[in-house]
């Protein structure tokens, strides 16, 4: 079901913006016991980040440069499509000791 939904979103996106490729990837990042792993991930513009929160606490993925601020409720998975290139440090607003980094390449997947 997750896959089907993602396909639909990707489809809509490729209609909306031709820059977004059909082969965009999904990168899974897990938050468990207040640790983000992998702490460093690489992706491309148009890829989807899937944050999986295994904790009973709400977390956020908040970019230090303001590019995104995603709330991930307890025991839930939230997806976000990367829109801008750059090296982005992000953290959890509720538990700022949770830190991670995304390297986002500007050239979309072929």
């Amino acid at each position, binding site marked *: 079901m997750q896959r089907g939904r993602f396909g639909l979103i990707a489809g809509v996106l490729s209609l909306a913006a031709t820059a977004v490729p059909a082969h965009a990837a999904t990168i899974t990042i897990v938050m468990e*016991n*207040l*640790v983000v792993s992998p702490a460093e991930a690489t992706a491309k513009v148009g890829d989807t980040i899937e944050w999986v929160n295994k904790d*009973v*606490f*709400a977390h956020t993925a908040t970019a230090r440069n303001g590019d995104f601020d995603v709330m991930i409720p*307890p025991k839930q998975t939230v997806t976000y499509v990367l829109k801008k290139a750059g090296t982005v440090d992000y953290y*959890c*607003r*509720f*538990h*700022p*000791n*949770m830190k991670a980094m995304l390297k986002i390449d500007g050239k979309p997947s072929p």
Partner: protein
Amino acid sequence: MFAQVGAAIAAVMLLGGPALAESKLTDPQIAHIAYTAGNIDIAAAKQALTKASNKEVKAFAQDMVRDHEAVNKQALDLVKKLNVTPEDNDTSKALSKQASEKLAELGKLNGAAFDKAYVANEVAYHKAVDSALETKLIPSASNAELKSLLQTGLKIFQGHEQHAEHVAAGLK
């Protein structure tokens, strides 16, 4: 402000005090202390929700209630599973006594003065609990699941300490 911070640290220092150094804490006592430490922060946050005027301070207090209730629920589930009855002890009693004094003290403050004093105490309190968890409670815990829950608790308390520092910086 410094006097308040000092008092909070002094109270939690009891955890490492000489009276306790003589007798090792048992798991039922450790569970009780950890649960009490969480409850104290929930009570402080509930007071802040009725008294705080700053939006960030209120949001912080809400986060404290939510997270510490979640940790304490895990703790209750664990003691039930392990068939352990949390045991009241001198450290828990000292913590509770100091906390009720702090509630009364903060209760006399209003507006920005309350906000500042509450957040300063949250920084100091979380710092003190961090060090008690690290140096006393975690090393003393025998059960592996209890130890692991305390380790998650430490990360939560450390996160809240940084969050409180951030809120405190915004109040200046």
